[in-house]
């Protein structure tokens, strides 16, 4: 597909809007349908489209395995970190009310951060799955 101009142009045009839509789903998630899981998959779809059209090598140059692993871990740590911070604020694990001391701002910040952690990790896990399966033939032949 690398040499087909239609795919190349379409992928370039679609790449940013897909991510933008993913971010919309991400930040919509704390008060409506949406959230980290769905957003993560949508954002990963942009990178997977890029990888499909421009090839796995380009995809791996865009997001290397090392960076992807870090992002994966950081997402989980954002989620867990919210829980740990709430412990240090004297609350129970993942008690958003304890985060800032106010119910409204605590709940807001808590759910945004937790969804962000989910979104970040889902994105990188989807991408890692794609790279692992797409690269299987090259890496093991």
């Amino acid at each position, binding site marked *: 597909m690398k040499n087909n101009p239609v795919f190349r142009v379409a992928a370039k045009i679609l790449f940013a809007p897909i991510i933008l839509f993913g971010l919309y789903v991400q930040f919509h998630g704390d008060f409506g349908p949406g959230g980290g899981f769905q957003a993560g998959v949508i954002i990963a779809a942009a990178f997977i489209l890029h990888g499909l059209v421009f090839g796995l090598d380009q995809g791996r140059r865009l997001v290397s395995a090392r960076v992807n692993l870090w992002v994966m871990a950081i997402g989980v740590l954002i989620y867990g970190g919210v829980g740990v911070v709430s412990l240090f604020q*004297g*609350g*129970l*694990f993942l008690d958003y009310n304890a985060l800032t001391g106010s119910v409204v701002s605590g709940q807001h910040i808590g759910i945004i951060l937790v969804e962000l952690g989910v979104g970040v990790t889902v994105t990188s896990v989807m991408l890692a799955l794609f790279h692992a399966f797409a690269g299987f033939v090259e890496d093991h032949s």
Partner: protein
Amino acid sequence: MNDGGLIAIFLQNLPVLVVVIPLLLAPVVAIITAPRLAWAISVAGVGGAFLAAILLQSITESIGRVTYHLGNWEPPWGIEFVVDSATSLTLVIMTGLAFFATLYARASLMSEIKHTDLGKCYAAWLLASGGLFGLVATGDAFNLFVFLEISALSSVILISMGAGADRRALSAGFNYLVIGAVGATFYVIGVGFVYAITGTLNIADLAARIADIGGGAALYAGFGFMIAGIMVKAAVFPVHIWLPAAYGYAPSAVSSLLAAIATKAALYVLARLLFTLFAGVPDITELAVTYVIVPLSLAGIFVGTVMAIYEKDIKLLLAHSSVAQIGYIALGFGLASSASVAASFVHIGNHALIKGGLFMAVGGFVAALGSRANLASFVGIGRRMPITATAFTVCGLSLAGLPLTAGFISKLYLVRAILAEGAYVITALVLLSSALSLIYLWKIIEVMWMQPAPAKAPNLAENPAIYVPLWIVALANIWFGVDASWLVAASRAAAAALLGGGL
């Protein structure tokens, strides 16, 4: 709002920290490339869980039952962690053995898997441990399923890590993945049924509502699916078929961890389902234990033992013997008297010590031999590696149930409990199987000690990083054989908490 610093925070959040410390250190370990640092963090993580479990045990001894509401959501809406005497004893056993297995893991994993995989291996190790601790600590039927998945998927990764030494680890891991997924699916289908008729997922709340409902096809279907699913995870005969290959081809340290804690957690859940969640429908649980669990346990005891007698590969032999030992534990739960359930808890602890130690010792042999441990390579190994071989023998004699070892205490309490039920046939079968287990054990001991080492066989180096944790576990086997009072008292409290119907 912070009052009293780190220690106060630690003490106030013990039930969740048992699970969260290992789980949250897993991503940290995953990105670390230095194996030694990754190992140190893993030891700290599992050690933290061990410490929390010990404190929980002392708390439940005095006040009985601790609950923890995640996110400060009241149950039954929020997820609740519930720790009573049965939970805390299981947690102490599991975290303790996981701690020593982690201490032991560095040298053993170093010799058995690719060094570039070590960081990810420790991450999976922490996830598996944390997931299994969560399985025991949680008081929510669906949350239990999530922990089931976390621990199963990470266990598959750990088992597949054995592929560096033996490619059969891959098919073993795949089998466990597929069969384990069937088990987990059965469990969640069962949860779906009981959720449909009760509208709740909190185990204590479920138990109360199920007692009110009292019967019906949906409830029985849910019961059947949940019990069958957990039996797959606990490797009760005949759904144990994933276990021998999984333990046999995994890296030795992983076999030691999983043999000590993985099936134990599932057996604990099985007991929880029978005696807490479905306590309100005694007709169906009695039917299940009498006609399903007791006969299958007995069958498992004999099948596992006979398979072990004919097996020549040491790790596979120990794995087959695990099937038999799981049978003893399930048998105790199946008889459902307070004495037999207590005996099961005693054996959960002792078998974790026995099998944990044996697999550690085999890992020591594998590291020194550089090949798989089988009867042929064991010839005269007692003279070539006396420290490891002695520890192996101690744990082995404990497995056979020789007096002054932990295994003897298990058999003693189990046989006493069965006799108290007046089940003489079962008593005879247990004693017979116990005698049969001497056959496979003696086979190894004879080869190890009584046959001379092959001519010109070099003396093998023994690594203190391997034999020190091994000997701690081996000495624990003797300690709990001589003075079992703590374990027996804790097991009786556990049985009382479990059968008291209170969660």
